[in-house]
């Protein structure tokens, strides 16, 4: 091991603490309060769609647009997900189908 046992445990603790501070902050800030401030209620409504958009961009952040295959496998597979979901409205079929198409594309076609 590159670190001693106590050092490793401290590092695990440090990673966990940094992560947990960010996860607990809103719950600690608004615990016990019966009525949430109006802006927080508003954020509770707009953040889920906005953060889903953010996560989506995050997922595709390293897709090469200008080089390689220009993100074509990602584009095709995403289209499969979107269109199949519009058609069947089935969560697992769209996720499974899109992933299968993507794997075929990157392993066999591109």
């Amino acid at each position: 091991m590159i670190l001693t046992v106590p050092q490793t445990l401290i590092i695990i603790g440090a990673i966990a603490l940094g992560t947990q501070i960010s996860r607990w902050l809103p719950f600690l800030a608004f615990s016990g309060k019966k009525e949430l401030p109006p802006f927080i209620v508003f954020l509770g409504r707009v953040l889920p769609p906005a953060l889903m958009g953010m996560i989506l961009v995050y997922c595709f952040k390293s897709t090469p647009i200008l080089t390689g295959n220009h993100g074509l496998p990602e584009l095709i597979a995403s289209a499969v997900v979107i269109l199949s979901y519009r058609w069947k409205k089935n969560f697992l079929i769209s996720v499974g189908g899109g992933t299968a198409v993507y794997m075929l594309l990157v392993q066999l076609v591109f």
Partner: protein
Amino acid sequence: MEKKIDIKKMIAGFKAAFPYTIPVFFGWIFVGLTYGVLMSNIGFSPWWTMLFSAVAFCGSMQIAAIPMMVSGFDPAQMLLVSYLVNFRHTFYGVPLLEKYRDGGIFKPFMIYTLADEQFSLAVTAKKPDDVESKYFYFGINAICYSYWIILSGLGGVLGGLLTFDSTGLDFALNAMFIVLFLQHWEDKKNRPACVIGIAVTLTSLILFGSSIFLIPALLSMLAIFWFGREKL
């Protein structure tokens, strides 16, 4: 607060939650196994890897921690980086204040394991009416949590033995996030926020590059929502 755990209701909650976690499992196969291999490459046994996963439970930061550990023992820097990498999680709690309110004895665990996938499922998944909410949300998080620990441990055991070509399997997470996004998009009143989320993050990615763009994106979104709170 209700202390007793109702096993029957818990099973019902896990049953309802399980289908939603399937994409997470497939999406994590590649990254979980890879993480286990990388950890064993720098000398950690699968038990250590599983301990990292169980206590830290933050996929991308755990992977980022590998080169940081190789370069030396620096817990203060590790804590700071870990906070900044997971800064977005602070925003995840806000819409879940209500949903997690009745979490009872499960609430601390639900908050402890509140990462991207769990947040996305919790704010999007349709909980069946006959399932009690705390068992449903606890089920999502507990099942995903066990996937991560098992997969990362398995990666350490299997090492380079893996012959199945799993290239592209991690697209399962992208596909899952697309579907969850579409479910928000379907409701017309969500669309301005959907567009803001994508546009602001994309702009930030172009301006700041792929390593730190989430923090300026989140702060800009907060500012936009503050000034647009009367209009959206």
